[in-house]
């Protein structure tokens, strides 16, 4: 029997080890509910996130990318998130100019104590991506199951 699957966006989250990753942990241990669309990659700092990672994720067919780090002033390395902020700002604007929906590139500040906020952010981002639709930007050599949508 053929099963109709409703399309769900796939989201990569680059979470900083000190704040957002711990925040995600807290969301789990406090049993907060958030959509399972996110695939988490732990990075030492949001400043580690090269715009190349964001592009590569989109190139591989992910529907969106979330970069999350410590609030300004709280970075474990003092300033990493400030550099990240500049980089993401120009990346987002530039990709918008090329024709990539800015919804696909997301950023947030989530501290280790904000499990609730993490759940909210992921819920909101997943909802936004569902409206934007599947990432077919680089399509034509992606494997088919990745773009499966409701028939």
């Amino acid at each position, binding site marked *: 029997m053929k099963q109709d699957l409703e399309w769900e966006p796939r989201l990569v989250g680059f979470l900083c080890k000190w704040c957002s990753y711990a925040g995600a942990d807290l969301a789990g241990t406090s049993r907060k509910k958030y959509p399972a669309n996110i695939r988490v990659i732990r990075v030492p700092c949001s400043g580690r996130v090269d*715009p*190349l990672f964001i*592009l*590569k994720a989109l*190139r591989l067919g992910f529907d969106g990318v979330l970069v999350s780090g410590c609030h*300004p002033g709280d970075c474990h390395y003092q*300033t990493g998130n*400030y*550099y990240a*902020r*500049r*980089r*993401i*700002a*120009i*990346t*987002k*604007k*530039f*990709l*918008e*100019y*090329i*024709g*990539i*929906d*800015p919804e696909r590139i*997301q*950023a*947030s*500040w989530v501290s280790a104590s904000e499990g609730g906020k993490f759940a909210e*952010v992921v819920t*909101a*981002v997943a909802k936004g991506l569902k409206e934007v639709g599947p990432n077919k*930007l*680089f399509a*034509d*050599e992606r494997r088919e199951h990745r773009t499966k949508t409701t028939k």
Partner: protein
Amino acid sequence: MKDGNIEQKLQSEAKALLESGKVDYIIGFEAGSLKFTTTPLITNNIADIDRLVINPFIVNNLSVYLTEVKGRVGIVVKGCDSRSIVTLIQDKQVAREDVVILGVPCPGIIDLSKVERLVGKDRDELDDITRDGDRVVITVDGNETEFPTAEVLFDNCLGCEFPTPKEYDVLLDEFSPLVAGKAASQESLEKLKGMTPEQRWEFWKNEFSRCIRCYACRNICPACFCERCFVEESEPQWISPVPRWQDNLMFQIIRNIHVAGRCTDCGECERACPVNIPLRSLTKEMYDIVDDLFGFKAGMDKEAAPLLTAYALEEAEDFIR
């Protein structure tokens, strides 16, 4: 001052520099093998100095050679090129004391393809092109026709913000040129911005289907000085070396992000492209984004920190949740 006089001044300055041993090499322009072209001249021989020229066709941004030539160098630069040198100093690729900058106030460089389109003749059929202020006189078969200079300049020269070099040791001429045509230089970008995102993506997809990944844009770019480019990494392999449009476009997007805050809109990438991809429509947009968001213009201050190695506490973050 006439181009001829600037040329004489340049030649005497260059000779003096080589003779006194202040520099090991001179990097400048000499006449090219084709009509109305110039080609870079890199020399340590005083006898070659007479070949140096200054004319409305000195198109190349010579600062790209600075990272390759060892020793102290005297270099001929226009406004945009001098800013490229400043970014190289900011990035510690070049030491200020190792370069003697011979600055040329630049009233704009003539785009031969625009001339060809304007007069409907091949460049070989033209007898002469002379510039006199804001008029250009083109001679074909003995007949002179006059055009406004703005009609034959490269897009990136139109409305040039800084025609006079920012950083120099010798300024070869005193006058400060004003280049008209700001609006025309933004035309191609405005056209793209008027499209829907889907149309823009489709546009770039089309353009980059032609890309043969020769990396001419990267190699000609003074801001692209990495010893090892990310496209050549194999562990991990970020992008496939096969010239598919997806990877071509990804390469160019990342290249633009890498040169953000270093690109001075000199237009060399677009001119180097063998398949005529309008690369300046990408680089200029990044130039504008950086200016809008952070009020940062590349190559203005050699003491300033490079764009992406600095931050301000309060900065645009309305996009952050």
